[in-house]
């Protein structure tokens, strides 16, 4: 496989994954905007922007944080590199180049999404349309993922999934980083409505709200949620699940065992640690520090993948 093809495949799934994350964040913001604003908490749209890594760009463009503008910035804005529009545009342009390494269905899934996006962009939207937009995005991304199941299980497949899980690991971790304080024990809030609400934001933004209920019995506690999102191998968005899959798709690559070996060595410790760690230890050590380190590690693995395979 051409190095460039591998790189483009990797980025297609990163972009599609990012489109979904951004759409889910918007959904969370939308949901929150329907609840009475609890005193003492920041505007929810601001944390949506931080979690999407778009706060700086947004503030360069707008003076105040308003739902209409946030929606537009995160969904349609061409100047925001992570807007759903740009993610889909980039995924499609990459797919155009590597459609030969795809199934026709995968190409269709990406290109149709793009064509529909152009139509959506031409229409004018009102606040209440947001749920439709997020639902549409999630559907499109699922269509794309589904189409991947008929791919040959070759290196191209593994590069696609490496991209997907690197992006997801990064997204989940960044979201946790923005919201980590919600999971810290604060006596004055425990059991209060505010906590519940904040927790549900976190879970929803990781599409894990109902999954959590099925995975854990009894009361909802901060520790359980942290465990679910960081260490639970059954949760498809937890950090440990992402790492496991990065390792899996990395070691499944049949090209250049020595390159795979070098990247794996860098990743090994994190993988072992996350599989053996207890959530209490992490919280005690500092969830924030843990997540920050994790993000740094993922970014260095991403750099290595680029250096070893795509140059």
């Amino acid at each position: 496989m051409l190095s460039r093809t591998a790189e483009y495949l990797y980025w297609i799934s990163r972009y599609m994954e990012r489109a979904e994350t951004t759409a889910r964040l918007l959904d969370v913001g939308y949901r929150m905007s329907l609840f009475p604003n609890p005193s003492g908490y920041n505007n929810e749209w601001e944390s949506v922007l931080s979690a999407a890594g778009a706060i700086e760009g947004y503030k360069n463009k707008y003076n105040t944080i308003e739902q209409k503008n946030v929606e537009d910035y995160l969904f349609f804005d061409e100047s925001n590199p992570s807007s759903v529009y740009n993610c889909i545009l980039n995924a499609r342009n990459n797919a155009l180049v590597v459609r030969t390494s795809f199934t026709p269905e995968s190409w269709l899934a990406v290109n149709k999404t793009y064509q529909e996006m152009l139509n959506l962009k031409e229409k004018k939207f009102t606040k209440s349309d947001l749920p439709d937009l997020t639902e549409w995005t999630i559907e499109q991304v699922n269509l794309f993922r589904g189409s991947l199941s008929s791919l040959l299980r070759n290196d191209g497949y593994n590069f696609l999934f490496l991209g997907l899980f690197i992006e997801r690991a990064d997204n989940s971790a960044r979201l946790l980083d923005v919201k980590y304080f919600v999971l810290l024990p604060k006596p004055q809030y425990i059991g209060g409505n505010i906590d519940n609400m904040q927790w549900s934001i976190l879970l929803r933004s990781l599409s894990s709200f109902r999954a959590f209920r099925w995975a854990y019995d009894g009361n909802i506690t901060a520790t359980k949620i942290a465990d679910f999102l960081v260490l639970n191998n059954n949760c498809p968005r937890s950090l440990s699940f992402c790492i496991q899959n990065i390792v899996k798709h990395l070691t499944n690559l049949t090209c250049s065992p020595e390159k795979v070996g070098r990247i794996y060595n860098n990743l090994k410790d994190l993988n072992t640690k996350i599989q053996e760690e207890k959530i209490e230890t992490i919280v005690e050590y500092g969830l924030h520090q843990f997540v920050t380190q994790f993000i740094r590690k993922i970014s260095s693995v991403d750099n290595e993948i680029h250096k070893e395979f795509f140059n």
Partner: protein
Amino acid sequence: MYQSESVIRNHYNNINDWLDQMTSKVILEKNAEAETHFRNIGITFSTNNETARERIIPFDLIPRIFTYTEWLRLERGVIQRAKALNAFLADIYNQGEIIKASIIPKEIIYKKKSFEPSMFGFSPPRDIYSPIIGIDLVRTSPNDYFVLEDNCRTPSGVSYMLENREIMMRMFPDLFHNNRVTPIDDYPTRLLQTLMSLAPIKCENPEPVCVLLTPGPLNSAYYEHSFLSDQMGIEMVESTDLFVEGKYLYMKTVDGPKRVDVVYRRIDDDFLDPLCFNPQSVIGIPGIMDVYRTGGVNICSAPGAGIADDKAIYIYVPEMIKFYLGEQPILDNVETWNCEKEQELKYVLDNINELVVKEVDGSGGYGMLIGPKSSKSSIDEFKTKLSTNPKGYIAQPLLDLSFSPTLIKNQVEGRRVDLRPFCLIGEQAQLSSGGLTRVAMNEGSFVVNSSQGGGVKDTWVLAE
């Protein structure tokens, strides 16, 4: 479709019945379906205006039909022509017999920009310079076909031929149950076989590694590049994916370098090798020409193959057929005046109101004058151009291109068409069982180019 006023030619009967039973509503729906399909698969062409949406070429639902016997003659004629053009290239880059025989003056050949001096004395595998040739044909009466031009470099449009058929089969399966239409979907396989049969001498691989070299996504034929490489199952590469080491060409893969035997290039000569052609070029593979000349790789079509489809050379193709093949040309040329010759220039200037004047290096329907349909001012403009630069132009009579029934606002109307079938020459010479029919969608128009409002149709060749 019509034999004479309102008499339908036999082989169009089925289509006529089919049209009769389609309501306007169905036609509208099917048109919309076709458009959505083309957008979804991405068979679009980009325009220079980046903000504009990619455009799709208008697709007409009514197929153009050839009978088996009609096609047989075209097939023989096109293959004959393609063979002669390759023989011509092999000759002028070696002995130059046709020049010695005073059939073509040597200035016409050697002074052309498309003549490539560095090819002199080199013979590509099987002496095939141009393995994929698109011949543009027009029909002026039931049995009169003329060749409008030859395309020996990198003819495009074959993806439309294949996709037009796909969409027709998808939308109107019954049509294909009731008509015996020769399939064309084996074209990519045949193209790959052709390329593989042209492996360079130093290739030891029984299954030569072929790649398609594209200039990149901004090229207007990019869809076709990706479509063809996909259908052939070969890598579509850009020049940055390739490099030369030792006497071989390699592509950069995740496993490390992989040797490439045959390059089906869809870029111009100028951008192949900055060491050899255009030192300013940022695209291109330094050293590839050296590998080519020493038999480490084959480049299809060969650098310098473009001389064969030069509009000034076109005039001599019937002579070439007689000279190299010892045969009478099956397909005629359009009568052409070479403005370089004083007498012919005079004739052109005197009769410009009746003629079509074309730039020798022009394409895409740009830079041409259709005398009978032009204003006095543009005719005067062309007269000046002709007088100052006569060798830049040729002139031809305005041919009465045949009409094909075309759906215009739900009504069947006649529109002018041409045809580009695709000829492959490798181990064997063969013609696609169909081609690209282009149609001038505007009433009364003679220009079928997509850049000038042309559309396309599915083209059927009926089985014997």
